[in-house]
């Protein structure tokens, strides 16, 4: 009882800290100088319509490299933690999981290519429309999840997944380094022509970087999902 009361009081105290926010918040009527610069100069400087992508991929590209590294480390950690599972359970051979009903299987046959295609669409158009590499990668991974729902015994080809992931990670850093030698600095997108504003092939290396990130995130999350399924 005392514990519940304590929890309740703590909740009240934390809520009170945010109360002022919810009762008196005034939205800023002017962008901060940094945001103003990104909004006003970004499209001319980098050629990307989606300003969020311009900031993520180029202005703060190094942070995004760190973000990809965090995701990679977490995928590696999941692999490390769940890798030992198989050996112990090997003593008695696992029974095959029941496949799903025909309804689910047919629906997945129909939806899987669309989900994958939609993921690719999202990361290819990341510099023009809402979306980008991480979002597209997540959609691709959800396609993999659909596959596992319909066919629980399905296996991903580890060789291909590993190669694709390492290739895209390596390519991302390589593109970043090309920015140092051919343009203004690490991950500068302007070593490729900026092209016409708003076209698919524009904004320099930005689509290239987002395609690489999308492939990396998609394969990484798919492998994580497979680990959780238990190979």
């Amino acid at each position, binding site marked *: 009882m005392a514990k519940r009361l304590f929890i309740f009081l703590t909740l009240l105290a934390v*809520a009170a800290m945010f109360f002022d926010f*919810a009762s008196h918040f005034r939205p800023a009527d002017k962008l901060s100088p940094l945001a103003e610069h990104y909004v006003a100069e970004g499209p001319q400087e980098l050629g990307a*319509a989606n300003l969020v992508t311009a900031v*993520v991929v180029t202005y703060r590209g190094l942070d995004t490299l760190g*973000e990809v590294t965090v995701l990679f480390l977490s995928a590696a950690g999941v692999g490390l933690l769940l890798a030992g599972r198989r050996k112990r359970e090997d003593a008695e051979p696992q029974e095959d999981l029941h496949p799903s009903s025909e309804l689910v299987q047919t629906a997945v046959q129909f939806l899987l290519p669309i989900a994958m295609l939609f993921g690719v669409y999202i990361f290819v158009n990341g510099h023009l429309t809402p979306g980008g590499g991480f979002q597209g990668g997540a959609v691709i991974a959800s396609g993999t999840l659909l596959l596992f729902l319909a066919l629980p015994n399905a296996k991903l080809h580890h060789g291909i997944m590993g190669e694709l992931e390492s290739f895209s990670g390596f390519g991302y850093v390589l593109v970043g380094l090309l920015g140092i030698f051919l343009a203004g600095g690490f991950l500068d997108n302007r070593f490729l022509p900026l092209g016409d504003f708003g076209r698919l092939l524009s904004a320099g290396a930005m689509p290239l970087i987002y395609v690489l990130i999308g492939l990396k995130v998609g394969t990484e999350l798919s492998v994580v999902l497979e680990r959780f399924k238990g190979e």
Partner: protein
Amino acid sequence: MNWVGLYNYWIVIFLMMTGFYIVVSQGNLVKKLVGLNLFQTSVFIQYISMGKMPGGTAPIESSAPAVYSNPLPHVLILTAIVVGVATTALGLALAVRIKQAYGTVEEDRIREEDRNV
């Protein structure tokens, strides 16, 4: 007072307190992770709401002149979502291992097992 117009922030407080309550009161590790994710989501909503300019649209350049919302919260939250996915995956993997080692994911029973050793 503009309470109704600030309903985003009331949703934020509600979600945040729900998540916080789950984290401190539940003994089940998986439920704790769900609570953490709820808490995270409330922070995402708060940042995105704060970045909105009055009359502003999404920060995607179009031919018609427009007021754009602040793109910086969007960028921060994009990073936060990815890191959130990474930590959730790692936390769930730890929960799987704990379940294998102890046969349960309930905190009090894990402590009991530890005492018996």
